[in-house]
């Protein structure tokens, strides 16, 4: 193992903003900021529970455009075409629903509430992600 691309300060600062956004959503709307769950509910919840989800997702997308405007071009997934990226996104959605939450819902919000269920979920999906990455990068030799 080598460590040569560690960015601790932006990571901590960005993480703090993510935490603030989660606390903000909980205080203002009484909602847990689990991104995969919010996106899922946008299609699966009754119509009356959809609009705030749409606004949250719109904010996320607006952040991407804002970053693009001030910091330049966005990094893309190298070595794969748009079709593969779309398929990967589909798998991400499927996987996060299977685990009942993602790094934001189980990770940031769940761990922040000292939820044992979330701790187990985070440990397991991180381990599964590491195993999948090992196979993809070092066994199959897919581009990274």
């Amino acid at each position, binding site marked *: 193992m080598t460590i040569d691309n560690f960015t601790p300060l932006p*990571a901590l600062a960005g993480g703090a903003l993510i935490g603030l956004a989660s606390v*903000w959503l909980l205080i203002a709307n009484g909602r847990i900021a689990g991104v995969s769950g919010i996106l899922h509910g946008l299609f699966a919840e009754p119509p009356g529970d959809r609009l705030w989800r749409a606004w949250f997702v719109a904010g996320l997308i607006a952040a991407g455009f804002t970053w693009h405007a001030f910091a330049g071009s966005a990094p893309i997934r190298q070595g794969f075409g748009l079709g593969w990226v779309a398929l990967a996104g589909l798998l991400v959605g499927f996987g996060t629903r299977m685990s009942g939450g993602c790094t934001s819902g189980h990770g940031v919000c769940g761990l*922040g509430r000292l939820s044992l269920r979330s701790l187990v979920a985070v440990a397991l999906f991180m381990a599964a992600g*590491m195993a999948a990455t090992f196979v993809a990068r070092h066994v199959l030799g897919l581009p990274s």
Partner: protein
Amino acid sequence: MIGYAAAFGAGLLFGIGLWISGMATPRKVLDFLDVTGSWDPSLALVMAGAVSVTLSASTPEILSSP
């Protein structure tokens, strides 16, 4: 209406945090998961930063709910 504005603001702040932290870059997430290769621990610090905020904002009522 206030709720929708707050939801948009939360999404915006969340997204800016994702970009600042580097987690909008697929490569950085993959490098975190690649513990046997050129490991990038940044994602762990993003979670640490975020959880330290959510944890410090947690009230006894929130912690006792299921």
